[in-house]
């Protein structure tokens, strides 16, 4: 018996050492090694899928000049620290950590690897070798508001929020500004799903909105579940992060698409040419790569399931935002209790957007917490 065990063990040990040798000598050549950390899997068809598409653009653009490693389904805690550290140890020269909760883990590992560049997506803390990138998602929501205002018959808009944090709230407020620019009678009701990704909860929230009379749905959560419900119940809605028309060909009006590819490519090019930097400035948000429609980090999918006249208005809003003619948060702004936020002639700056803890006029209820 014992002998048998010993044999098995020695077999294991032998194969281990052989394999180890093979792997240590496997990688020759000199491509730039790039690491990605995903929160969920590309199968979410939302947030992570958008990053996956960005990664594919990187691979297409650089070909064999890069070697990409991906780790998916990494929880935002100690596992993240370990995975990011491991990616750094394996010689990745630039590592993209693609969820807010990776902020502290990224900073922690970055301190240990001063020669590796880190790109944290949607965070606000930077250091010498940690840059941050984010998309002005709220710009797309303004156009959603315009389309919703023109398309709604019940004047009730159902909005599904993930968590009551500034990023989501500025999206709701931006939607409200778009909505009220074309329709002063419509208003938005918000249901908090308290999750970024849970198709069941998202579907439930959509059903409640429709039962309460909403005919246009918008979401700040990641799955196509809301649109699928809209499709079934004859409501309309907007896709999130990626084009979701395949899930709801008759319900999706358009989708705001997160286009990370160009950003990734630019940062990798900067790294290759030795020009990589965090672009840090004195203002907290300056230096953060926060691009929107103009920078083409946010794209708008085809306008569909709407009359040409509405599509034309939507296109105008899109053009206006791109050219800077439309300033979404220009004063006078009043919150939904009538309190003045900013007088006429002034407009909210980026810092003020990240401090939003109130709803603007056009949104029902109040921000929880």
């Amino acid at each position, binding site marked *: 018996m014992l002998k048998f065990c010993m044999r098995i063990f020695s077999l294991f040990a032998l194969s281990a050492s052989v394999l180890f040798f093979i792997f240590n000598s496997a990688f020759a050549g000199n491509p730039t090694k790039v690491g990605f950390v995903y929160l969920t899997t590309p199968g979410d068809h939302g947030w992570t899928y958008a990053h996956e598409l960005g990664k594919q653009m990187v691979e297409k653009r650089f070909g064999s000049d890069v070697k990409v490693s991906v780790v998916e389904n990494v929880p935002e*805690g*100690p596992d993240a620290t370990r995975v990011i550290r*491991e990616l750094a140890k394996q010689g990745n020269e630039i590592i993209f950590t693609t969820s807010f909760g990776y902020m502290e883990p990224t900073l922690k590992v970055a301190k240990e690897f001063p020669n590796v560049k880190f790109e944290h997506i949607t965070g606000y803390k930077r250091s010498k070798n940690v840059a941050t990138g984010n998309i002005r998602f709220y710009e797309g929501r303004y156009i959603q508001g315009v389309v919703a205002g023109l398309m709604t018959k019940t004047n009730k808009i159902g909005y599904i929020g993930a968590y009551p944090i500034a990023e989501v709230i500025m999206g709701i407020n931006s939607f409200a500004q778009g909505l009220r620019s074309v329709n002063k009678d419509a208003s938005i009701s918000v249901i908090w799903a*308290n999750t970024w990704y849970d198709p069941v909860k998202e579907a439930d929230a959509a059903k409640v909105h429709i039962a309460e009379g909403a005919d246009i749905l918008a979401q700040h959560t990641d799955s196509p579940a809301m649109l699928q419900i809209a499709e079934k119940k004859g409501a309309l809605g907007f896709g999130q992060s990626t084009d979701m028309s395949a899930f709801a060909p008759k319900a999706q009006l358009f989708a705001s698409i997160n286009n990370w590819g160009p950003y990734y490519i630019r940062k990798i090019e900067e790294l290759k040419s030795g020009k990589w930097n965090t672009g840090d400035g004195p203002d907290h948000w300056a230096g953060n790569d926060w691009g929107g429609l103009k920078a083409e980090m946010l794209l708008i999918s085809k306008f569909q399931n709407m009359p040409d006249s509405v599509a034309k208005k939507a296109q105008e809003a899109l053009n206006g935002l791109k050219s800077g003619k439309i300033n979404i948060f220009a004063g006078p702004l009043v919150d939904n209790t009538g309190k003045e936020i900013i007088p006429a002639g002034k407009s909210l700056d980026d810092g003020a957007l*990240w*401090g939003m803890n109130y709803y603007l006029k056009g949104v029902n209820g109040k921000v929880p917490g």
Partner: protein
Amino acid sequence: MITFIPRDKVSKNWTIIGPILSIFLTVFFGLLIFTFLGYNPLETLYQIFLSPFSRIDRISDIFVKACPLIIVGIGLMLCFRANVWNIGAEGQFIIGTLLAGSFALLFPSIETKFFIFIMIVIGFIGGALWAFIPAILKTKLNVNEILVSLMLVYVAMLFIDFIVRGPLRDPMSFGFPLSKPYPEGAIINKIPFPGIGYLGQLHYGILFIILLIPISWLFVNKTLSGFKINVLGAAPKAAKFAGFKQNTITITVLLISGGLAGVAGVIEVSANIGQLQPEVSFGYGFTAIIVAFLGRLNPVGILFAGIIIATVKLGADNAQMSMGIPKVVTGLFEGILLFFLLTGETLQKYKIKWSKVT
């Protein structure tokens, strides 16, 4: 119908062959699946089982990952030995962390070298309090502890969520649900090794396991209380005849296991996260149930079970990094491993009898 009949005697040989056979079958099916999916099967197996041992800092990562699993698993061992089904260690973990973390954030200026030890005690109390609810409901009202402890997990999750979004949210966090960073004294440091520096995330919290395993071994094997717990689980009637107070034992094991889950949370968060956030446990409380059973409800077994589970989890990440194997595939493999290990163990103890339903 299938019935399981306990074997009179567990064969000594099979206790050795069983696990080896289980591993062999796992490897076999793993090879099949990986080949079928087009991955190099040997390389995949190497990544999953052996790559976590290929560097010293990777080995230390195994212990870091296994640490909370082992601590929670040891607590659950006591419950399961007494036939008390605490499924809610996850919730006890969270409440222990939350209570200790709140203490650290509310009284950061208390100057004492023992700050972290105070937190550990508070964490124990927090976890025990959360486990006290199913304990008291079971002993006073005969409410099923499985349901109560499980449902309290979700209460705990929402509670910590509420706390870090509201009362304890860092005002500098731009609305993101995060507490302030813990004060210096509340952090469990990494262990420095002369000449090498730090080994991954290896921290002083590991020392707690080194203490806990022998103590728990002595407790279950050499003390009267441990004996009472074993008897209550193995033969409740005998325990009653012997005059053991069943309710006291039930409450005690639940309090200890809840307390240990709380301590695991304090150590995990103080060593690896350093602040409160909506998610502090990542299924540790649930995974520890598997660890406890895989370790055959025995402290040393639980140590190894924790290491096995941690190894496979780390190996799965490595396989992804170096070979691009998605987590669903490695997860499948993990499932196969657990299936064969637990089946093997069951078949050692039980005979299967097939009979027609009449």
